[in-house]
């Protein structure tokens, strides 16, 4: 299922914008109405959410299940960190540079990856993820070694504005970047929906009709690299520290699994699932110290059985069900069991 994003010519179309305004509204409410814990905690989840958007794009739109998007993520993050530490602290500059670094990295890797399919891509990208951490660890002048970098200067939104350090502005900023980048991804994917569905579904026929399949996939991979790079910049802006472990297999696995839970064809679903996953690991498990992996494992198992096709498919089924119930307009009350759960 793909969200549509046309311009709001009519009132009816405005409804399509609501999903995009929801996270912004939620972030504003959170920033306004809670203590310092929630804004900082949620803001720190958003880089992974945006990385999951990038992974879902490659996995869903291009059909290439990947663990390798941590490479452009790392490129974006270290570019941002080094720019900030060199005294260039403008956020728009960071985002642009990180997106370019991400696209460049993904472009290079894409030349190798997009020629392959299925499990081979998964394993090649596993090597990419592992080699990304190793390279970051070894390249100490950039990464600061295994302990990484800390105390990276905060970004400025515009010249002359105060640095983005307080938790609430950081949350609003990170939400805005995440939503904008996801919306841009969706717009592009929607515009090329026909081509991508066709290429993914039947490569041979598409090639025989003159479609350079590999080039299309490379473009998607590279574009998703720009999103991953942006996510890397966001990682620095929300954390202001980074270690090589943050751009390794664990992060890649969480992002890919979030994309699966969200429904691989839905970047926004992946973002929501990433927040859910980190919510379980960092928030729900905080009161049962030492058992975060157990809860995370339970979440994954539950997601497989209870949400076939991911969150997005569940939402679609829910909508279909509501429509069906409305259409039949049954007068009898709902069964007791469903009342209890609703």
């Amino acid at each position: 299922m793909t969200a549509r994003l046309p311009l709001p010519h009519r009132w009816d179309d405005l409804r399509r914008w609501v999903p995009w305004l929801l996270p912004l509204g939620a972030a504003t409410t959170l920033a306004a109405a809670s203590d310092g814990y929630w804004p900082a905690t949620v803001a720190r989840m958003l880089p992974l959410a945006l990385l999951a958007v990038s992974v879902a794009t490659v996995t869903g739109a291009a059909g290439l299940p990947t663990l390798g998007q941590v490479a452009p993520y790392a490129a974006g993050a270290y570019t941002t960190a080094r720019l900030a530490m060199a005294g260039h602290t403008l956020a728009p500059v960071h985002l642009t540079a990180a997106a370019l670094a991400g696209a460049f990295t993904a472009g290079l890797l894409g030349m190798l990856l997009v020629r392959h399919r299925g499990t081979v891509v998964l394993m090649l990208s596993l090597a990419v993820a592992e080699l990304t951490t190793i390279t970051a660890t070894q390249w100490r002048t950039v990464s600061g070694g295994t302990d990484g970098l800390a105390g990276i200067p905060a970004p400025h939104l515009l010249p002359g504005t105060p640095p983005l350090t307080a938790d609430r502005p950081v949350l609003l900023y990170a939400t805005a970047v995440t939503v904008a980048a996801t919306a841009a991804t969706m717009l592009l994917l929607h515009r090329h929906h026909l081509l991508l569905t066709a290429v993914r579904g039947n490569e041979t026929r598409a090639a025989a009709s003159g479609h350079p399949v590999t080039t299309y996939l490379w473009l998607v991979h590279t574009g998703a690299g720009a999103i991953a790079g942006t996510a890397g910049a966001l990682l620095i802006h929300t954390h202001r520290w980074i270690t090589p472990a943050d751009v390794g297999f664990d992060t890649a696995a969480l992002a890919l699994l979030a994309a699966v839970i969200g429904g691989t064809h839905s970047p926004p679903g992946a973002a929501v699932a990433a927040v859910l996953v980190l919510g379980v690991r960092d928030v729900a498990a905080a009161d049962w110290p030492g058992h975060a992996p157990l809860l995370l494992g339970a979440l994954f198992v539950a997601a497989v059985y209870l949400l076939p096709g991911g969150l997005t498919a569940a939402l679609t089924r829910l909508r279909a069900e509501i429509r069906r119930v409305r259409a039949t307009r049954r007068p009898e009350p709902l069964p007791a069991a469903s009342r209890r759960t609703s």
Partner: protein
Amino acid sequence: MTRLRSRLRRGLASATAAAALLTAAACAGAPADPDAVRIGLLVSLSGTYATVGQDMQAGFRLYLDSHGGRLGGRKVDLVVGDEGDGPATAVPAAQKLLERDRVVALTGLVGGATVDKVQVLTTARKVPLLGANARPAFTSEGGKPRDLTYTWHTSYNSDEPGIAIADHVKSQVGDGAVYAIGPDYQGGWDELRGFTDTFTRLGGKLANPDGKALFTPFPATENFLPYLNKAAETKPEAVYTFYAGAAAVAFVKQYAQSDLKDVPLYAAGFLTEGSVLTAQGPAATGIRNVLNYSPTLSNAANQAFIAAWSAAGNSSPPTTFAMASYDAAAVLDRALAGVAGDVTGPKLNEAIGKVGRVTSPRGDWQFEPTEHRPVQRWYLREVRADGPVLSNVLVQDLTTLPAT
């Protein structure tokens, strides 16, 4: 259709459950006792370093329990957080302790990377960070050195064990060369640098062909035999190393099975500290290592500590990890006693600065006034059978660090 609906229902149920879980988690953390002082203990309870984390928790709780659950006359509400494998999980947990539980001090912290990142949070919130294990060489912040006003450690700097033992090793090998080998991560680099820098400054020679310590991939490498046999070709007079955890077990076992088995092995004490020693078994016998503590120290504080430790049901002797965490509780005990009225971060921090001499199982020590880490004695230990179990038996005092 029915199946679809039942699936939907299950999906909804799980979503509701997840939401309930999150809400419950959000609401938890209201103070149980308004007069109690809330202390945060952040240690690894899952992942690679869980053993060290559990030791540290046991050490802190031992002090707390043996003082009626009170520190400085105040009831203590200890909130434990899981550091996991590093900053990615540790920072959210620290944030929760600081913002939701509003602890007045944060202690524990197993990994150097974690300390490096959490230190920024605690400093910003003016909450004393009383680390009880790794202390990294704090990276500078925007070109300025780190503000260490709110940062304290009851442990040591990672390069100190190497510095402390270098002179002794030099005196043992004379003109012979020493082979240095360690794991390829920050802890390994610091530990080895402490030794190699001091050792070469004293005129010692490294047997490593390029004159630099050899670093093995970490944590990927657990098969050290090829490295050890290769090292044997340099005919070293002795070997110096630092490993911890699973790698330490594998290293010690394989050292005894390699061409190097008859070459004396010197190490930072973590190689044979705690549960790894049990797993290493007789292969560890005779390893000489350096640490700020040995369970066979004869001072009164240590005897009381050992007695309490055994009484608490621990079968193996206490470790430096448990001891440093025990001392962290002792520091808080004395500092809290010096705080009048409501306990706040800045007031507690000021009180920690006035703690003075701490009587400890490792021997008395005090905080170095600017760097806030212990000025303490370092000991040479040797792995020997101590009754039925292996123990790191005290051989001699080495030196006091940091040198004043």
